[in-house]
């Protein structure tokens, strides 16, 4: 069996793949956070809860209504997006005039409510969610066996990230979004309905988190706490990348995921903190973040 630095290569590739998958979730979630923050100036603490909601929506759709994975991939983000739109209209929009910290505190409260409620209903333990039959099994890549579902997650997350990036960089809606991120008042003075744009952006960001949640359901267990543990890591990812750049958020997500996977191979004890350590180093060397602009 071949080895690299004394590590058997299949184990190495396996951890890189796991890192790539974790990175897929970091990328999708930090992308959503960055888009929401750019326009609303709100750090959406409920992002983790919305990811969890997406996973639970898929689980409940399957177990209560018999709706399959593929439909859930569409319906769950839609449902969570609608909830987010209601949250933005009734609550978040009241906070745009005050210190940005209140947006963080509000969404933190909402995250606690959602998590607490789901823990009350479903318990803290995870619920299994089977991958769709089309995506079971594994393929031989020559250097390793890759479970099909995991490959799918990486591909789907790349498609979603690139799609979102294209939406923002290449469409008219995206131009509104970029312009409003710079100067919302002026964009509104040109006749763009900026309040509506804010609502849609929050809905879109939450839907993205829910989509990630559905993707995650067959890999991780569906559990009420799956979101908050993840979101704190994603915060670190966002600090590393800086929220000024959409592409930066995506790239940082994947890279940190892979680095975390590699740490698991070479120094497993540090794997749960490596991203935080990287964050600390980045703060020392380049406080604004790798892709960030100094504010």
């Amino acid at each position, binding site marked *: 069996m071949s080895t690299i630095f004394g590590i058997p290569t299949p184990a190495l590739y396996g951890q890189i793949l796991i890192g790539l998958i974790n990175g897929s979730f970091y990328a999708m979630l930090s992308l959503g956070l960055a888009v929401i923050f750019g326009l609303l100036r709100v750090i959406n603490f409920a992002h983790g809860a919305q990811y969890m909601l997406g996973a639970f929506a898929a689980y409940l759709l399957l177990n209560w209504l018999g709706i399959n994975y593929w439909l859930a991939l569409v319906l769950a983000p839609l449902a969570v997006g609608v909830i987010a739109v209601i949250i933005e209209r009734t609550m978040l929009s009241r906070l745009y005039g005050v210190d940005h910290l209140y947006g963080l505190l509000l969404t933190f409260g909402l995250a606690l409510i959602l998590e607490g409620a789901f823990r009350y209903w479903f318990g803290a333990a995870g619920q299994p969610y089977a991958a769709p039959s089309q995506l079971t099994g594994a393929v031989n890549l020559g250097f390793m066996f890759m479970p099909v579902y995991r490959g799918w997650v990486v591909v789907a997350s790349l498609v979603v990230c690139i799609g979102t990036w294209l939406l923002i960089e290449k469409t*008219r809606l995206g*131009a*509104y979004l*970029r*312009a409003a*991120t*710079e*100067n919302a*008042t*002026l*964009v*509104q*003075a*040109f*006749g*763009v*309905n*900026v*309040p509506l744009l804010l609502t849609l952006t929050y809905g879109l960001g939450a839907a993205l988190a829910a989509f990630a949640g559905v993707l995650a359901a067959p890999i991780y267990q569906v559990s009420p706490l799956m979101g908050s543990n993840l979101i704190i890591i994603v915060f670190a990812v966002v600090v590393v990348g800086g929220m000024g750049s959409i592409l930066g958020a995506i790239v940082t997500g994947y890279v940190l995921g892979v680095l975390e996977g590699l740490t698991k191979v070479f120094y497993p004890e540090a794997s749960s903190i490596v991203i935080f350590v990287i964050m600390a180093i980045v703060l020392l060397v380049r406080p604004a973040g790798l892709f960030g602009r100094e504010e």
Partner: protein
Amino acid sequence: MSSAPLLEVRGLNAWYGESHVLHGVDLDIREGETVTLLGRNGAGKTTTLRAIMGILRRREGVIRLRGKDLLGLPLHKVAQSGIGYVPEERGIFASLNVSENLTLPPTVSEGGMSVEEIYTLFPNLHERRSSQGTKLSGGEQQMLAIARVLRTGARFILLDEPTEGLAPVIVQRIGDVLTALKKRGMTILLVEQNFRFAKKVADRFYLMEDGRMVNSFPGHELDARMDELHEVLGV
């Protein structure tokens, strides 16, 4: 002259936070007219434009466009009722390229210039259409800021110091553009410090001081009133 004014401002008061910045401003602009606001820095000219647009929200009084009340409208509805705004700071977006900047403001009514027409009028913008908006020179940015509202079909344009800090050649160009717009029947409310420029385009002047309208006179009286103006404006 008997027809109702296009824009009618009556007893407009406005506040920045706690400070009272406009005190009972009255202003009339008729269809097709170009009106210039004169006054020292801080007299309230820019504030008047911002209050009319609704960017400055704390206002009292009457603002009517074609008889329709603007005061109660949310900001984006004001532009949609047919006003184009060219802010003093020009407001070119750094994250948008020139062509995206140009097409950003939504169309508010029929009859706006097409992108092709605009590029004919401003060939520089066509050449640099893929550049980042803020990479343009100051003059080009000003052209872009004006061009941007011409596309929307707005028939009434608020222009805030379009010649500020620009070279004489560019000022000349902007003057030509404004003349062309007047010929097309556009109504323009201009804030301007440059007399010579304003004299060429303005049909009427308003003079502001300390957030109040202190005088108004037709454009041809400008020369005769120079001494008086120098006193008020301190130039």
